[in-house]
């Protein structure tokens, strides 16, 4: 197979992959993990000294 054609087909495959990985990413309220997103926890210190963790999820690079 010609190199450039092979690259184009590879790029098409990646397009399909992105669809599969990213589509259901954002609506998982509790666990939107693994579908092209990453989550991390941010601590917030309350007035009484307790710490509350807030979860932040975002689309990967």
């Amino acid at each position, binding site marked *: *197979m*010609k*190199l*450039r*054609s*092979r*690259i*184009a*087909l*590879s*790029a*098409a495959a*990646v*397009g*399909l*992959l*992105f*669809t*599969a*990985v*990213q*589509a*259901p*990413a*954002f*609506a*998982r*309220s*509790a*666990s939107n*993990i*693994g*579908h092209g997103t*990453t*989550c*991390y*926890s*941010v*601590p*917030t*210190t*309350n*007035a009484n*000294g*307790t*710490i*509350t*963790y*807030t979860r*932040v999820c*975002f*689309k*990967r*690079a």
Partner: protein
Amino acid sequence: MIAVFHGARRCFGALFFVALSAAAVAQATSPLSPPNAANEASGHVEAEFGQGWERSTSPLVRVSPDGALVQLPGLSKLAGPVSRLLVNGSREWSTNGPLQFSATAVSEVRWSPTARDLDLAFATADFSARWGFGAGSFSVSPSHMILGVAGKSFRTTDSVRIDWTHTSGEGDLWSIRVEPARYRHNSAFVDLNADVLAVSGIKRWKLTDTGLDKLEFAWGVRRERNRQGYADLSNRGAHASLEAVWPFFGAQWSATLLLQHTKFDAAGPDGLPARRDRFLSTDLTAEWPLSKTSFVRMNLSNAINHATPSLYENQHRTIEISVGAHW
């Protein structure tokens, strides 16, 4: 190829073990999660199993005997039942000062008994150091991710996330992130190796007075530069999404709309014009609690990519019901 496959399996196994280890450590050492005082450790563990059905369609493309791409009438269809298993373990360590450390390991495997090309495995591990400054915090987080498709290793990603996140006591939040990343692929896809720089942000509103639990707007821009010098694979893009979360009929519902536009730098092979993608996805999820630590969730999603040239068009539909627990 067999060696690559076995290597990928070992990597997934190792990260799966990390996730499970994090779960065990978190359970053993942290009866209270999150911590209720400074200088404590906390852990979070989550496991989820889902059963669904997926369908992907894309143009039918072949390579002619002289090596040129030829698009044929009709669509290439891939559909079948898909099972999914997710394990996620995280642990945070607070100090007496403004510094906090955390580690996270996630592993997810999807497999289809009738359409093996839908198989997908994903694992990521990251470590984070976060400094608090009043209501805001600054974090640096290196991350390693591996991705396998159709039973074969596909991509590893190494990245460093730098973020500033600002929270309020009312639940509002905004955040901005910069994340340089490097994509590496196995020998069959080495032409896709690339360096990526992404900048993204989130604004979250708590809107309890309106009947909504949450409204979240997310955005991002990215630049991908092909490391082999193929300008037709280098690209820049932007995305925006809006998510609404609300309670209804004993469940927490969420709906998300995501738009993404990607423009490639140069014309492709065989006279193809420079690629442009316009990606749109919609997602609806409902989650019912079964107990304090378990839930059942239903998800519907549809994603469509309108592309120029049409070679790159595709559509992906998913319906899934899953059960999960977190500790």
